[in-house]
Structures are given as structure tokens and as C-alpha cells.
């Protein structure tokens, strides 16, 4: 009897595991193996080099710089992007007019293709002909105008802001869903008890929203660390190495220098780092719950 139940249970996960095993694990094993070889992606012969790819990664300053920069963008996403999403979701949660309109509008950025987003924002941010500088000058802030995407001081932050703009729609949606499931009665009860707006926010909203916040945080970290298409179309990783991110470095190894083995080693390293970050977050989360 027990065997039958267990087999039945396995049936539930069987399709997922099958597809996963064939289309993820098998290629992954191949990638994992390649990390220990030197290969240009074309020749039939691969040279075994052991750990030397990994040793090179540790010494590769540009790799660590790209990792740091990707972390910076993620930090901005975790704070600015999610705060914006939360604020907007909270605003839409109240009984205000046009909230259906806003719900649709705020999801347009995630839906647009990266091509359009890259083009439009390049155009807006252009140092000479861009609208942003045009309006800054118009309102008298001429000293604030700069070449947003080519100035080494602003390039990374600018790219991060555009990325936030494109991504906040998802957080907005999830936060809104979370907020809408808080029973109105709880707010009523709090008001009857004499709580003002801030108190009810602190004691009702925040505790019930923590699981959503955690979920959005995890997805934000994983998603933002792996970003690259938008950056590639807007700055190509430049100026210099100022907007390089790990995935762009992996692609550069693959296509630029035809160093497939090294690219695979970079991929593995990156994955391990992301796992460590997620694990750390999981531990923090567990501790907070306790």
C-alpha cells in the first residue's frame, strides 16, 4: 500500500523531473565538464587544464568588478525599484479612481521589447539631444546636465534606474495582489481601536506583507544579477568597464575570445555565488521568522 502511494506521489513530479533531467541536467553536466578544459568551441580536441580556468577567474579583476557592479544594480533594484513598486501598489490599493487604468499602464514596461526600451532611453538620455537634459536646462538646472550613459560617474546608476523602470511592474503586481488579500476588517478593527494611518500600516499591513516582500526580494536578486540585454544595448558594457556585468563577461569569453571552457567556468562560479547569496537570504529569513 505504501509503495503504491509513493509511486503515485512520484507521478506528480515525474513530468517535471523528466524534462528537467533531459533539458537542464544533461547540458549542465556538459557545461560543468567544459569548465575544466580549454576549448575554442570549434576544434574537436579539448585540452584538459584542471583548475586553471578557475584560478584565472580568481585573478581576473574585471570579473570581480562586473560582479560588484551587478550587485550594485541589484541593490538599487531591491531598494528603489521595490520601494517604488510597493508605494504604487499601496496607492492603488486605496479606493481611488482610475486604479484599473494604472494597473495596466504600470505593466507596460515589462512587456516592451528590450530593443524599444534601449532605443527610447538612449534617446532620452542622450547628452546633446536628449529630452532629459533639455528639460533640466529648461528648468534652470544646467549644471546637472551630463552625458548620462557615457560619464563614468553616472553610467552605472543610469543603467540601474532604467532597469528598475523596466522591472517595477512585476513587483507592483505581486505587492498589489498581496495587499488586496489583507481583509478590510482588520483595518476597520484597527481604526475602531483608535489607530491612525501610520499605526495601522505598521501593525496590520507590514506583518501580513512580509512573505510577499521576501518573495519579491528573492526574485529581484536572482533576476537582476543576471541582467545583461538592456545594458548591452545601451552601453555595451562601457565606458571602459564601468557597466560590465557577469553575463556580459561570460558572453565576451564565449564570442569574443572563443574561450568556451573559461566561459563555462565563469558560469559555474557565478551560479555558485548566486546560490550562496540565496542561501544567506534564506538563513536571514529563517532567523527573522523565529
Amino acid at each position: 500500500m505504501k509503495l503504491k502511494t509513493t509511486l503515485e506521489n512520484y507521478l506528480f513530479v515525474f513530468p517535471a523531473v523528466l524534462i528537467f533531467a533531459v533539458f537542464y541536467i544533461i547540458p549542465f553536466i556538459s557545461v560543468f565538464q567544459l569548465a575544466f578544459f580549454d576549448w575554442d568551441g570549434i576544434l574537436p580536441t579539448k585540452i584538459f587544464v584542471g583548475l586553471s580556468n578557475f584560478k584565472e577567474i580568481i585573478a581576473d579583476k574585471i570579473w570581480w568588478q562586473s560582479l560588484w557592479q551587478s550587485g550594485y544594480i541589484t541593490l538599487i533594484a531591491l531598494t528603489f525599484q521595490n520601494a517604488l513598486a510597493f508605494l504604487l501598489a499601496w496607492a492603488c490599493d486605496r479606493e481611488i479612481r482610475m486604479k484599473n487604468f494604472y494597473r495596466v499602464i504600470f505593466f507596460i514596461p515589462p512587456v516592451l521589447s528590450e530593443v524599444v526600451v534601449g532605443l527610447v532611453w538612449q534617446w532620452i538620455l542622450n547628452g546633446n539631444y536628449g529630452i532629459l537634459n533639455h528639460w533640466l536646462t529648461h528648468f534652470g538646472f544646467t549644471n546637472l546636465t551630463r552625458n548620462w550613459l557615457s560619464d563614468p560617474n553616472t553610467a552605472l546608476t543610469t543603467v540601474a534606474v532604467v532597469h528598475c523602470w523596466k522591472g517595477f511592474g512585476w513587483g507592483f503586481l505581486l505587492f498589489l495582489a498581496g495587499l488586496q488579500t489583507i481583509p478590510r476588517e482588520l483595518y476597520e478593527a484597527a481604526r475602531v481601536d483608535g489607530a491612525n494611518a501610520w499605526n495601522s500600516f505598521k501593525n496590520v499591513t507590514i506583518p501580513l506583507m512580509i512573505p510577499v516582500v521576501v518573495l519579491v526580494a528573492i526574485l529581484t536578486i536572482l533576476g537582476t544579477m543576471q541582467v545583461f540585454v538592456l545594458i548591452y544595448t545601451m552601453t555595451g558594457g562601457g565606458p571602459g568597464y564601468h557597466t560590465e556585468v557577469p553575463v556580459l563577461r561570460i558572453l565576451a569569453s564565449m564570442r569574443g575570445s572563443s574561450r568556451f571552457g573559461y566561459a563555462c567556468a565563469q558560469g559555474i562560479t557565478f551560479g555558485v555565488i548566486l546560490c550562496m547569496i540565496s542561501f544567506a537570504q534564506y538563513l536571514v529569513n529563517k532567523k527573522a521568522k523565529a
Partner: protein
Amino acid sequence: MRSTLYYKTKKTSVNVIIHLFMLTVAVTCLFPLLWMISSSLKTQETIFKDMSLIPKVLHFENYYQAWIEGGFGRYFLNSLLYTTVVVIGIIIISSLAAYAFSRLKFPGKNIIFFMFIAAMMIPIQGSFVALYVLLNKLHLRNTPIGYILCMINVGLSTSIFLLKTFFDKMPKELEDAARIDGCSKFGIWWHVALPLAKPVLAVVVVLNALNVWNEFILALLIFDSRPLMPLQVALMTFQGEFVTRYPLLMAGLTIAVLPIIGLYLLMQKYIVKGVTQGAVVG
């Protein structure tokens, strides 16, 4: 005690500020879409000279030309097919798995779940070639089913993660009631879990539909024959090696973005509904 007028004006002024804030954000969200549409109605020569949002001459024929030249009819249907099948496939496969991870017991459950989660963290850019060789060996290269299976795999981990998080928070009473009524495990999954999960399922639908609809590089690698290509590949014909035909490209992109917006409009009602029917989380 402050007067009601104070509270009323305070409430109105707060509302005004909130509206202003939201409108500003909304404008920045709308702007690229409007720019895209307005550019699609200009010509190659005026597109970077004419800065107006509504061009004097509206070249609607760009849409017709983009459709014909891009061969959109065929590619549009292909994209629709791939997206639909992949989304349905993911919904079924990942909800089954997520339900099992959440509610059922079997040896190795945690390890298998952990593998799925780990897969979300390890980007395998380099795996494209390995995937290609694998599909070749399985004789699935250059076939719709090969591409569909690959794309199902791409969305599996995140979908399972989202669904499991939801199933964990689901009240057990409904399931217990169904079990007492003699429902099998599959029956509970189908009749109880899935309907309750409509909001999060809607998120999964939109997420995966967006991924498949906008996907391009894997399709280019896996498919050799043009008739099997999805829409995004067709859009590349306007982004020439040297000459990008911007108005046609913008028209094509506008056409491409409409179905996704339509799908979102349909699904977002479910995502936000959940007041009485449970929620995504929380």
C-alpha cells in the same frame, strides 16, 4: 480635536499628491509605447528629424508593409502556437510538481526541490551549444516539439517556486474536506488546488507567455527552416546588418506587443481578485 474640514482637506491634498505621483510614473511608462507607435507612422528619413509625437502624415501603410515583408502571418501563428502550448504545458507540469512538493511525501523530495531552485540561480549561457547537440541526437532539432520542450524547461523552476509558495499557504481544510468526500490526489489537485490558485496561475501564465513570446536566440539556434520561426526572428529582418528600417521595425514591434498586452489585460483580473479566494502569498 481637529475639525472634519481639516481631515477632509488633508485627505484631498494627500490624494492629489498621490495622483500626481502616479501620473508622473504612468507618463514615463506610456512614453516609450507612444514613441514606438508614433515612430511607426513616420518614414525612414523623418524618423529622427521629426520630434513630434503625432506626425503630420500618418503612414499607416508601414503596418501593412511590415506584415507582408516580414511574412508576419506565418510567424505570428507560430509564436501563438509555441506560446500557447508551452504555457499550458508549464501550468500542468509545474502545478503537479509544486503540489507534490507542498503536500505529498516521497523520498528525495527536498533534494529534488532544491535542484529546481538551484537551477534558477545558475545561468547556463554556454549550454546553448550543448542543448543543440542534445536535440540533434534526439532528432528533435528543427522541430516544434523540440523547441517547446526546451522552453517548458526554461520556465519550470520559477513557476514551480511560485506555485509551491502559494500551495504552502493554502488552507488545508478544503483539501481535507475533499479527501473525506473520497477525492483522489489528482482530484484534489484538479478540483481544489488549481481553482484556488487562479491568481498565482495567472502570474505564471503571464510570466511564461512573455518569456516565450519574446524569446529569440534559442529559436534561431534550434530552427533551420524559416516556416518554423517565431515572430521575434521575423522582426530581425528589419534590423539589417547595416540599415535598420526603423519605421517598419517599430510597426512590427507594435504588432508584436499587442497580443501580450491583450493577454495581460485578460489575466490581470485574476491576479488581483483573490480577496475571498486566497492570494499569491500572505
